[in-house]
């Protein structure tokens, strides 16, 4: 059984690598400059099953585990990290939240469409005043006789513009702490949902990031996901999985940057020799390779623990923290190895460097990961 699973990870890796090479690589620079969201690519990804990786087959998904999932995200990230970020956010935030905590009816209604990519999913935790402190949510949900009325604003929401549905957190108990926050399923064409300004980002520019303004958004009673007051706890559990996908994102970027640096160092001649023959460059390449390998081990360690049904809060954060910082370091060294050419858009490494930086910020900053890890260690 184990041998068979390994075999399928290799087949999946091969397929995604080929897909990225043929469908993404030729367009990377053009899409980045135009900040273009390639809808056609997402249609293809949906057809191939990559938008419902973790969704069981009974709901129209591929029904795969985290080892396959991180393989997919990392392979996409090595070529076009923005596409990988969108795939990660769609799968592990919105879709997984519904999968983990949705009612049967919510799952039947949304999972097949999300898994096929007919609808892209968004997930709204962050607010202008509630970033790292997600428990500080100011968006409110007021109970009415026939449902809920939501008011507030979310920002930095992946797929706020291109998405069809979102899971959002809102405070249902005024003046409460994080135990007064609940999660809601919100079709984004609901009256009162205003899609705000699209962020003009440093990197990850193909991934759609915008704000959402919620003005008297009326939702039916069954829009509540899980029990009232459990939204924050649900979100933290969703992030336990999501952070593994950001680790995979970092891993892929680091691997892509190392590859680029290796091939450049072999080709570029200075002082009559390839720069790869200089020990100073070799040491950089060696250190980069160690970071990539360590990021890979931690990412797959967390994925395996998740697949074994363990609680992965600490491992997920450790993998996310390490792989993200590794991505930034490796991408920066890749730029350095390219010299002046690395600082231009003619080579892919400057983009990987810009894209990598998101990893240390999204789904909890590196500082927040350290807080999470320390709390787990100290048993708080």
């Amino acid at each position, binding site marked *: 059984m184990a041998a068979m699973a390994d075999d399928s990870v290799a*087949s999946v890796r*091969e397929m995604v690598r*080929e897909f990225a090479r043929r469908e993404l690589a030729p367009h990377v620079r053009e899409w980045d400059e135009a900040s273009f969201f390639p809808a056609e690519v997402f249609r293809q990804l949906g057809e191939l*099953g990559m938008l419902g990786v973790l969704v069981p*087959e009974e709901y129209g998904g*591929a029904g795969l585990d985290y080892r396959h999932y991180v393989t997919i995200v990392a392979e996409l990230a090595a070529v076009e990290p923005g596409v990988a970020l969108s795939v990660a956010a769609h799968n592990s935030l919105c879709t997984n939240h519904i999968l983990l905590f949705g009612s049967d009816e919510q799952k039947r209604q949304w999972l097949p469409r999300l898994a096929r990519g007919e609808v892209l999913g968004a997930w709204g935790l962050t607010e202008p005043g509630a970033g790292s402190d997600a428990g500080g949510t100011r968006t409110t949900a007021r109970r009415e006789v026939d449902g809920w009325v939501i008011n507030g604003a979310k920002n930095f929401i992946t797929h706020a513009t291109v998405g069809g549905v979102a899971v959002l957190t809102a405070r249902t108990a005024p003046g409460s702490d994080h135990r007064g926050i609940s999660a809601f399923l919100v079709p984004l064409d609901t009256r009162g949902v205003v899609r705000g300004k699209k962020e003009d980002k440093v990197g990850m520019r193909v991934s759609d990031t915008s704000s959402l303004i919620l003005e008297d958004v009326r939702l039916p009673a069954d829009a509540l996901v899980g029990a009232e007051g459990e939204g924050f706890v649900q979100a933290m559990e969703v992030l336990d999985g999501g952070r593994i996908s950001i680790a995979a994102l970092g891993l892929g970027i680091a691997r892509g940057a190392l590859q680029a640096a290796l091939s450049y160092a072999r080709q570029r001649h200075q002082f009559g020799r390839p720069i790869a023959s200089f020990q100073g460059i070799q040491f950089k390449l060696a250190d980069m390779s160690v970071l990539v390998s360590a990021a890979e081990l931690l990412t797959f360690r967390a994925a395996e623990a998740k697949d074994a049904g363990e609680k992965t809060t600490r491992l997920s954060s450790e993998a996310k923290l390490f792989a993200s910082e590794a991505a930034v370091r490796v991408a920066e060294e890749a730029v350095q190895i390219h010299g002046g050419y690395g600082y231009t858009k003619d080579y892919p490494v400057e983009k990987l460097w810009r894209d990598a930086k998101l990893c240390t910020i999204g789904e909890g900053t590196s500082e927040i990961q350290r807080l999470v890890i320390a709390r787990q260690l100290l048993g708080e």
Partner: protein
Amino acid sequence: MKYCVLVAYVPDTASIIKIGGAGNRIDEGGIKWIISPYDEFALEEAIRLKEARGGEVTVITYGPDRGSTGLRECLARGADRAVHVMGGEATFGDAFAIARVLAAAVQKAGPFDLILCGIKGVGSDQSLVGAMVAELLDVPHVSGVVKLEVGEGSLTAQRDVEGGTEVFTAPLPCLVAAHKGLNEPRYPSLKGIMAAKKIPIETWKPADLGLDEAALGGAEATSRWLKLELPAAKAGGTILNGEEDPAGAARELARLLRHEAKAI
């Protein structure tokens, strides 16, 4: 409808080729293996025909162990059944021997209404196997097909020729060799990859087909690879600096073209 696709598992066209062995084979170390690109068109066409009108797609390869990986990929893309004829060492590069093995395998796995192959197998590119298999099976064949319509009992196939197209009709069963342009091959989907794991690959030996592989590659061999040579390493080009003295550079270029390259 029953479709059969002949699939060769060949060195990736992007591989860096080194000569190994006794100088008549490539060094297979570090080579990545792929389904021969023209065979991907053949497979895609068979799967589309099946999806449109029902039926079953069988893929057959003849070659060493690694061929199973290629067959798995065919199953992941939508083939229903896979046959691996193990061997190929003794008959390497001998198109007629390969065709005899494949024809026998097609006969044993069949009957089929339509047999598809690639116009050529990347690596040796002889474009022989398809026509030979058709001849051995005594069925008509159309090669280099870029458009195919299959009706009841017959097919219409189009091939590109210099400055135009040719349209053929042929009765079924028939063998069609696919060319680039026939379709756009799909990627295997995640579901397809997982489903393919559950389909057993049938493995046969030439002996199971009543063939003696040693004889095919020995006394009965029709061709053998004697020697491989890499193209001579290209010398660095000559760059004439025309910025300071364009007229002089043009004169020098004309001289080089006439006396060195003997191009004019």
